[in-house]
């Protein structure tokens, strides 16, 4: 299969502007700006069924149509914070196929009427930001960005902005706070960003991978896009495969590919020929899928089917856990992460992640009694539904699911 997003795997120099152009690049943007109304662009994206790749899977075209037409200016923001443990796809796109991502941002900006777009990157992606800055300058020099593009009334500028190490800044309202020069703490919603976002103005935020789909959809049409994937999730997805597999890496595949194909056909199987014990399809924020029956591996990966396994596909950062791993160790890791990353704004999450980490550490180091395990489950369940943003909820996912589905590991870890 030729790639739709990771096109540098067939066209190694696609990161050069001339090569990108020779392969059809920027024609979709030019066509949109010179021949289409913004609403028509939104309709194509709506019809393609494209859903956001940042985790929530929200329909992209619909989000774009929410930009409040009574309040101006509008802003476009690309979320390149990529900090979910197990996720490393946006980085590959930006490093290797940057113009397709930028063209997606440009088409999206035109569609929502934004004249300024910001790309918010995690601080560690400092080199990527510098390289994007150079690409943006090239686009300016060739008249694709700047004032009165192609002689129309449309103007657009793109700027990169670096975060400085905080997972929570991937949450869209925390990202906006951070972009405004504040601590990255989520805002109370409503209002939602499409009505009041950056500097209080309508703001559309999408993930890097979401944007990267857009030029191909505009060039080839919604029907072409829908011919791939499933009815629930049309198109292709970059699966970041990690953990105990032989060939970890990014695999761009149609939605609906099975876990089995991802792990065995593409990922080369489990390390040391062990067997899959659990799957975390959405990185550290996942509920663990218990693989006690081999047929579970035949589940097609889209949002709906993974939900039937009482988990979420999220950003499709698929972490493979084999039968050498004990879950008391695993959740000690995830809880430690969330405790470190909790922004501290609301009590249930701040206190809850603190207490959970205290308990998982005790359990993992063999200092706990059975009552501590029950207490852990209790703390996690108490947090659910009470946190201001999804991070608090995420922190409980691996805990509750592993206690419910892998209880024997915890019974073994506590003193009799």
């Amino acid at each position: 299969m030729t790639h739709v997003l990771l096109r540098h795997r067939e066209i190694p120099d696609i990161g050069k502007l001339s090569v990108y152009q020779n392969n059809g690049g920027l024609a979709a943007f030019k066509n949109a700006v010179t021949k289409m109304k913004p609403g028509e662009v939104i309709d194509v994206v709506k019809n393609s069924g494209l859903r956001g790749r940042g985790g929530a899977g929200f329909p992209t075209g619909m989000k774009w149509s929410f930009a409040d037409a009574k309040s101006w200016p509008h802003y476009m923001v690309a979320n390149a914070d990529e900090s979910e443990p197990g996720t490393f796809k946006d980085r590959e796109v930006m490093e290797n196929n940057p113009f397709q991502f930028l063209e997606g941002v440009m088409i999206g900006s035109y569609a929502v009427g934004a004249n300024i777009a910001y790309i918010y990157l995690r601080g560690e992606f400092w080199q990527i930001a510098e390289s994007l800055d150079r690409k943006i300058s090239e686009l300016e020099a060739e008249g694709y960005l700047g004032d009165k593009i192609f002689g129309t009334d449309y103007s657009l500028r793109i700027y990169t902005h670096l975060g400085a190490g905080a997972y929570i800044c991937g949450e869209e309202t925390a990202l906006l706070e951070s972009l405004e020069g504040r601590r990255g703490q989520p805002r109370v919603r409503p209002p939602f960003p499409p009505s009041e976002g950056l500097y209080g103005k309508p703001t559309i935020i999408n993930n890097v991978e979401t944007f990267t789909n857009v030029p191909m959809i505009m060039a080839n049409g919604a029907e072409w896009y829908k011919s791939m994937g499933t009815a629930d999730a049309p198109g292709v997805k970059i699966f970041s495969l990690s953990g105990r597999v032989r060939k970890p890496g990014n695999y761009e595949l149609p939605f609906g590919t099975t876990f089995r194909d991802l792990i065995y056909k593409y990922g080369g199987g489990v390390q040391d020929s062990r067997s899959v014990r659990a799957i975390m399809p959405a990185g550290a924020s996942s509920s663990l899928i218990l693989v006690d029956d081999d047929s579970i591996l035949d589940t097609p990966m889209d949002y709906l089917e993974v939900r039937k396994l009482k988990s979420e596909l999220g950003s499709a950062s698929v972490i493979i856990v084999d039968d050498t791993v004990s879950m008391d160790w695993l959740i000690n890791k995830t809880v430690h992460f969330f405790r470190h990353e909790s922004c501290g704004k609301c009590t249930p999450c701040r206190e809850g992640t603190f207490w959970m980490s205290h308990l998982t550490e005790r359990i993992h180091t063999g200092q706990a009694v059975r009552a501590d395990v029950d207490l852990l489950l209790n703390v996690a369940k108490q947090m659910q539904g009470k946190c201001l943003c999804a991070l608090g909820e995420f922190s409980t996912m691996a805990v509750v699911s592993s206690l419910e589905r892998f209880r024997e590991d915890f019974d073994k870890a506590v003193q009799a």
Partner: protein
Amino acid sequence: MSLAEKYPQEVQQILSKYPPHGKRSALMPLLFIAQRDEGYISKAAMQDIAALLDITETEVAGVVGFYTLYHEEKEGKYRIQVCTDLPCALRGAEGFMGDLCDHLKIKAGETTEDGLVTVEAVMCLAACDRAPMFQLQGPDAIEYHEHMTVEKTMELIGELKQSEE
């Protein structure tokens, strides 16, 4: 000397990215310049930036304290930040970290005797398929080092040492 005097063009270029009422957005980029300049963010730099952006020093300090890439103290000149988060840990990151610390005769979080490197455990760096890995945070750059071994890391530290002499 203030940042605006020392790096007028760079500061101007940063300020030009944001609308006038969004001037405060320049805070984080300016903090990166200050840190590049001195290796950490000093009190004087915070005062300087606060004045430049018409905000209080407390607000600046609040932002510095919130983000892990800003440092308020001068530690090792280089920070080797090893990812020991779950996906990397499933691929041997904890063993690597332990061996590296043994080789350097320090514990995680500590600095080598010569003050050259601090070794720290950090969260996911979006390189989970290339574990063991770390980022090398130096005075003016962050570099990723992937598929690492203790041997390769010691070589790298040797090179850093040489470049200091």
